[in-house]
């Protein structure tokens, strides 16, 4: 009775086994951790320009993003994602980088809108041509501004990316 054999467990999902009657799930830590992280992405509010209006739309009641577990946090110290929503000018770029540096690992960046992804229509002396010039970006959401559904898809793609991660936990990674 000490060890549960494979014949006692039921596979309820690929990679996840359950011991019926014992309320026990057996899975790899990767899967558990990734499931927790993907289901509760908490971005720091970083609306810079017009895309911020669409980000507010996504957070409002019609295209509710709270149903995906996304709660916007005001402080980068308590956030694990950053949605760069809007045009990044060269004067603002060090500030964006500083907010990103203050986020603890694991952290993700969604570049929302054309300006954050590639500078948009503003190919000028003062506009950064895409915030990936100084930030590592995980998901790009194009659009000017992207529809709320597009930003929702961006979050879903980020969830898919998180679910596929391996060994992003622990001290010896």
């Amino acid at each position: 009775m000490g060890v549960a054999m494979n014949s006692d467990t039921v596979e309820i999902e690929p990679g996840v086994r359950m011991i019926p009657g014992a309320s026990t799930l057996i899975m790899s830590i990767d899967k558990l951790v990734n499931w927790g992280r993907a289901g509760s992405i908490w971005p720091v509010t970083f609306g810079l320009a017009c895309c911020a209006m669409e980000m507010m739309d996504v957070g409002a009641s019609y295209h509710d993003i709270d149903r995906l577990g996304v709660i916007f946090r005001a402080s980068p110290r308590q956030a694990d994602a950053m949605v760069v929503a809007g045009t990044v000018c060269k004067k603002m770029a060090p500030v964006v980088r500083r907010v990103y540096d203050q986020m603890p690992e694991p952290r993700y960046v969604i570049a929302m809108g054309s300006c954050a992804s590639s500078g948009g229509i503003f190919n000028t002396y003062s506009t950064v041509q895409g915030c990936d010039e100084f930030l590592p970006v995980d998901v790009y959401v194009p659009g000017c501004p992207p529809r709320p559904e597009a930003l929702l898809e961006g979050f879903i793609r980020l969830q898919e990316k998180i679910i596929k991660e391996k060994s992003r936990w622990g001290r010896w990674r």
Partner: protein
Amino acid sequence: MGQMAIAERLRSIFPKEVLEIIKSRNQVGVIVRRERIKDLCHWLRNEPDLDFNLLMDLCGVDYTGMNKDYYEVAYNLYSIPQRHMLRLRARIPVVDCRIDSVTSIWQGANWHERECFDLLGIVFDGHPDLRRILLPEDWVGHPLRKEYPLQISGEQEWTGYDELKKLSRKLNQFSFQPESSETVPKKPHPQASAHDRS
């Protein structure tokens, strides 16, 4: 009062300062010298039946692109009690581009003159706090001049941004590069497959 009447009245009081009165598309512009601009504006604000108490806008224009050798500062004045407006254009040579500040007459000119200085390099004498307002303080150059390039990169780049890029390259070595359990995931675009079927 009509704009033309105001312009003629101004010319009768300041005959040497008014260079030209231009009428174009029902709008009148009065081109003036820069030397006594403060006297002009002071008179315009205090004259009882002109009464220009609102400076709607102050902006600079670079005419060197049209093969002229001057900048202009355009003052759009409006009178709230009298409900008439006037456009004053003060001509400034490129070589010594300074003009008196009108912040002592209309306080609202403060930030407009800072923007004009920031982007065109026109110095406003007597301004209480003339420094850059839109660009970073240590930016070199005045971007709205015609000779300033549209895009800058490499050597001409602002030093603050250069340093930021170097810093981010240095910090990239500490960022986590997770291996994903799939190699490049190829998710077919849903609309593409619909077209392929036809």
